[in-house]
């Protein structure tokens, strides 16, 4: 039995490695795509584009403007009129417009200064954060003004009670989005490639009719089944490791804090679960076009509901529960906990259980369907 399995695995490997376009795609998936992802759009507010209409042109307005700076805001331009400000927002060159009225300084001194913030609400989440930052800046400016007035009136700064919130962002102190994005892309690619490659390996035989040839060989269904999964498993694990060490840690300097042994043991379990899903789909269909439809139907929601782009807190409750049937939901949580937080098994056991249960169900389903092919 071992010889039969070995020769079948060798055949599957040969078939995979002979296919140059697929190899190129795999290298891209675990190389170029992850590199590009590290450089791609950060979803947080960094360099949020601001345009300013300063009608006051006073010391007070300059003091206020000086508070709009990196990392949150980037002033992309000063305009001279309402029309230009509107145009900058319309054309999406800026996402926030700030209008400082001509009498700003006088009003500030009189204690009722004000300025206008026009925020592009299109990207509602970013707009909310930007407004929060702006109100912080305003409050700090107010505090500064009151303190200055107090000092001028003979008080001392030491007599002013304030609360200093010392915020520390754990695990990613500078909120470097490349750390997050590159790992996300690795986990995405692991999922997509595992499912696509195994589904492809089965559908290919089906379409060409070579599956019937295999059915009349002494190969047992379990052997054939394993032979379809093993090459994907090996390839994904090797590529994932190279990518993690070479690009994620090498190029982006992402700290990998956890145990790689734990990570890859569980990744193997995950690849197995997802590959089984791929096989389950492949045995249900007749051709590539149909399997593609099924893949979209399954893979797309998995990517959307993984919890990485839209944290579970932002999903409606029914969707949050629905997302629990996706193995990726557990893998994303597991991956970030182990790689990023350096958590051990005690913290991630429930994710592992989730993946194992889903893996067992998909394995059971696909092996039954697969066997049925043999007993037609």
């Amino acid at each position: 039995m071992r010889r039969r399995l070995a020769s079948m695995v060798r055949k599957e490997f040969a078939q995979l490695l002979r296919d140059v376009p697929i190899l190129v795609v795999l290298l891209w998936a675990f190389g170029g795509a992850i590199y590009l992802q590290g450089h791609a759009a950060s979803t947080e507010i960094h360099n949020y584009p601001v345009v300013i209409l300063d009608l006051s042109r006073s010391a007070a307005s300059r003091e206020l403007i000086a508070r709009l700076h990196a990392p949150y805001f980037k002033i992309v331009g000063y305009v001279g009129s309402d029309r230009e400000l509107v145009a900058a927002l319309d054309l999406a060159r800026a996402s926030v417009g700030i209008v400082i009225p001509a009498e700003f300084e006088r009003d500030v001194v009189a204690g009722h200064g004000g300025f206008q913030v026009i925020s592009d609400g299109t990207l509602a989440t970013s707009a909310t954060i930007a407004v929060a930052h702006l109100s912080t800046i305003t409050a700090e400016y107010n505090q500064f003004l009151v303190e200055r007035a107090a000092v001028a009136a003979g008080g001392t700064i030491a007599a002013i009670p304030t609360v200093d919130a010392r915020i520390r962002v754990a695990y990613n102190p500078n909120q470097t989005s490349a750390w997050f994005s590159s790992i996300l892309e690795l986990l995405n690619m692991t999922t997509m490639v595992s499912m696509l490659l195994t589904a492809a390996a089965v559908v290919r035989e089906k379409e060409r009719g070579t599956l019937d040839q295999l059915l009349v060989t002494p190969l047992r269904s379990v052997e054939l089944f394993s032979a379809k999964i093993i090459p994907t498993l090996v390839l994904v694990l090797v590529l994932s490791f190279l990518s993690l060490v070479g690009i994620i840690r090498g190029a982006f300097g992402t700290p990998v804090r956890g145990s790689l042994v734990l990570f890859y043991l569980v990744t193997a379990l995950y690849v197995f679960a997802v590959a089984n899903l791929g096989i389950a789909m492949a045995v249900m269909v007749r051709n590539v076009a149909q399997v593609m439809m099924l893949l979209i139907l399954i893979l797309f929601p998995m990517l959307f509901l993984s919890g990485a782009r839209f944290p579970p807190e932002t999903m409606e409750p029914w969707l949050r529960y629905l997302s629990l049937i996706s193995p990726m939901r557990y893998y994303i949580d597991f991956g970030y906990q182990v790689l990023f937080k350096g958590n051990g098994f005690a913290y991630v056991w429930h994710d592992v259980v989730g993946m194992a249960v889903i893996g067992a169900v998909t394995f059971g389903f696909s092996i039954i369907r697969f066997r049925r092919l043999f007993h037609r």
Partner: protein
Amino acid sequence: MHSRMVAILLKETRELLRDPLYLGLALGIPLLQMVLFGFGLTADVKHVRVGVVDHDRSPYSRDYLDALVHSEYFDFVGLARDPAEADGWLRSGKARVVIDIPPTFARDLAARRPASIGVNVDGVFPTFAEIIVGYVTAVNALYNQQLVTTTFGSRAIRMTPPVSLNVSIWYNPSLESKNFIVPGMIVILMLIFPALLGALLITREKEAGTIFNLYASPARRIDILLGKAAPYVAVAFLDYLLIFTMSVWLFHVRFVGSFGLLSAGALLYAVCTVGTGILISTLVRTQLAAMLIAFLATVTPAFQLSGFLAPVASQDPIGRIAGALIPATYFMDLARGSYLKGLGLDVYWPDLAALALFAVAVYALAWSRLRKRIG
């Protein structure tokens, strides 16, 4: 000449209609996904789980925490006994942020000294961390402002803060996330589906060997490409019409723009995305390879580079260049603009021009790859 293109077009259409399941799925799956994500994803960050270590346990600390915890943004998960327990919450994800109030908090404030508190934010998901930092600093700054004004208020210097900010939100005044997610989903669904369908078009003929019939026929390369693309562009456009209808009638997404302009953009975009699929299918021999490439080449850029979740203007240069090379970026601008800003052709003609340019480029490349000879 035209008759040859039409003949191929009719043949493709017939083939498409002959497989009602395939056609049904091509039309139905995007709608299904739209329903799922349109109703289920909000992107509104509320219910951030906050844990507290209160060493002070004074009216001051309770006052401070009340301001924070009783906003709609935070869900209070509990008072930790000690910092170690709170760290464990952060580690396990039970809390996304932990507030640590030192024992000297009330004493410092009562003595009019600056007090400090510790805020520990789970930084794994940067967007989330950013929002939490934003909320906490805003609440803290408001608290300080209040402290300062009440302190000096007694000395009758000033009761109100000297500067106020007056915020107006344009384009999406209610800041509802569906107003940007749904138009964004149209862009993504219209990229991935047509590209995948297109990727099988030429490779299917290559695998079946029927490509030789086309080689031997008097049909020119351009006839083959456009004849094959047209029915799928029609399918993609029909999908767009259905999703658009759904977005307005079912999801009540704000739509203030021109339907004609958006549709013109959608049609051009469909030409681009089907073309991308066809280009892929001229590059490789097998349907499986084409499918793999189409999956891996479209899904990620669609999410990340097109500005789906973050303003394009805030990307780094490499991301920006990559974004400028894909049609999704331009259609995203046009689609969101049409839904929310309601501006006209005078603003969005560059997007249309970029889409047209991309279409020409992608079909020209496919044309040069589709050689009518063997080997």
